[in-house]
């Protein structure tokens, strides 16, 4: 199957590590040009070095997605460098935590507000270009009880609501909006690799709860994000693709 990504242009904030880094690598391999950022200049410079020489070109600079002005100008600069935007994948997250009220503010600002700001900056560019694909990143913790009541779960859930409704409003502009909800994903440098050491019992229990006895990989999630963001998924919009190897127990009608 041809994903149709050759020559496409993608903007992916917070993408020097983890699942989003994997998405960048796969897009570049497919021949897509990509713009990246993270908060640290050194990290961006290193990622740009490592990603250079692939099928697609990679652009980027340090940017704090919590800084509205900085974030919006980063998107504008990257769109200019890329010559337009076809794909936007905001996957930045504050992560979990239930030990402080501050978690709610952080999850709102990082997971929700930065996503909304990003979409609002990107949609006009996509309208100009005649369409595009936005893929949001949620979590199975928004779909089923997991790890106790906390901001991460609730506000990732709000992204699903936002994404669905955005898909309705921009459908006429040929912009598709989807979400991916990964279950627990294990990779070196990821949260579950840390929890394996620091909360070993919780890690083992979560592992046992997986029908296949393992957690997902960053590549398995990136595969789905890349597909939904590609022209190959041209007739998919407003959906929430659960990528959890059968971890969640609910029925999804």
């Amino acid at each position, binding site marked *: 199957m041809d994903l149709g990504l050759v020559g496409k242009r993608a903007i992916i904030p917070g993408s020097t590590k983890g699942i989003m880094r994997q998405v960048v690598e796969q897009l570049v391999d497919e021949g897509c040009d990509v713009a990246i950022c993270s908060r640290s200049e050194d990290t961006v410079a290193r990622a740009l070095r490592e990603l250079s020489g692939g099928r697609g070109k990679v652009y980027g600079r340090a940017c704090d997605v919590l800084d509205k002005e900085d974030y919006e100008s980063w998107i504008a600069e990257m769109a200019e460098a890329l010559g337009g935007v076809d794909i936007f994948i905001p996957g930045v997250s504050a992560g979990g*935590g239930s030990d*402080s009220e501050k978690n709610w503010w952080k999850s709102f600002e990082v997971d929700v507000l930065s996503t909304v700001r990003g979409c609002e900056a990107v949609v006009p560019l996509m309208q100009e270009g005649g369409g595009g694909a936005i893929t949001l990143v949620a979590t199975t913790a928004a779909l089923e009880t997991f790890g106790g009541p906390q901001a991460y779960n609730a506000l990732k859930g709000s992204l699903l609501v936002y994404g669905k409704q955005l898909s309705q409003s921009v459908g006429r502009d040929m912009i598709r909006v989807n979400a991916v909800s990964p279950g627990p994903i294990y990779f070196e*440098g990821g949260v579950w690799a840390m929890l394996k050491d*620091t909360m070993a019992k919780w890690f083992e229990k979560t592992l046992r709860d997986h029908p296949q006895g393992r957690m997902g990989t960053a590549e398995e999630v990136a595969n789905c994000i890349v597909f939904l963001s590609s022209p190959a998924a041209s007739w998919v919009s407003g959906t929430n693709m659960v990528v959890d190897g059968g971890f969640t127990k609910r029925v999804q009608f």
Partner: protein
Amino acid sequence: MEIIRKQVIERVDPDAQTRGTPAHKAPEQDLGNELIPKDRYISAEFMQREWEGIWSKVWLLGCREDQIAAVGDYICTNIGRESVLLVRQENGGIRAFYNVCMHRGNRLADDGAGHAEVFQCSYHNWQYNLDGRFKEIPDLHTFPQGAPPCSGLREIPCDTWASFVWFSLNEEVEPLREYLGEVVDHLEPYHFERMSMTRWVTAVWNCNWKASVDAFSESYHTAQTHPQLLWYLDDYNVQIDLYDKHSRYLIPFGVLSPRVDSAPEIPPPLKVLLKNAGIDPAAYDGSVNDIRRAVQKHMRAHQDALGKDYSDLNDDQLTDDYNYLVFPNVTFNTHADDLMLFRNRPHPTDPNKMLFDIWMFELVPAGEERPKLPKHDFREEGSSRSLGLVIDQDASNLASVQAGMNSAAYPGLWLSAQELRIRHFHKTVGEMVGESSGTRGT
């Protein structure tokens, strides 16, 4: 797990420090590279030499002063085949005696804490005053030779330091402070007397007492045995200082191990560190690598709000582990807000067993009620009840280490520079039993 990052730990400048425990690096000692013979861990003959050369010669930790606060309060503690009574006197002092009735040799009290007006032998009711002198010998007239000439219980040297009661079976022992040496100035800044004892556990472990001392004297085992700690401390950039008999290492807490590349978010144990220091982990915006300094600065600036007085500690001590081995058998795992004290005692007869004591202390904020003294929690051999995650992880190694040491294939300990304190410990053990380290058993 290999070292994958170069990590520079910002430490207190020992020449410029204006407060706290001296951070100076002690002069290096050339201890050689010889193998430490395994017979030191498994031989009954060596065990006997330890008794003669070490246990009956040195100062030994007995209890906390506040465990025997009132007149007549006592602690009965065993060391090897001996049992000792530490007794609060009417004049407020403390005296130590062998726990043995001079009549037929019966023990007067059982291991643990107690209170007595007089010590009464349960066999024939010989009675002793708190100062050890005979109070009453029933039917004394039937002893044609009269009462024993010793006039009562056999007294032994006893002294206090830093809220702890120490004793020695050696009547000629040097003064306690002289024996403790550097340790006195190094540990007094923690003001253990302000801390409250919260836990008092004794467990019977299936290993030699030195195997346990070894386990708490090196950080090389952290990566394999305690992987969770790699997200909390630097197990590699450790300052090791060897003194005369005693030693210490300084382990930076509040940082990632250089065996870990980076953390995807603040690791759970560092969140606890932040929280305990009064910083909301969710509000902490800095880098994970800066948590150690942030905690130090916050504790220093907010000590009044925290109800703590850290004025005698240096900045490193606000986060790091200052870990001392007071020879032969006490580990002071020391932190600004707590002390984890481990006492490693030999089994009375079996070199393959030991008694492991855990004494935990916490610095209770000013104005808060101090907890009641804990009851003695004794764990029989083979008890599966948890002693806490980290100690369970250590304990799970030790029985198997001891079993392996008994193998014909194993000659002895092959040590790294990270395990230098073990080598130093064995040098002292060797000298005290009249044998230099690494010359036998190969």
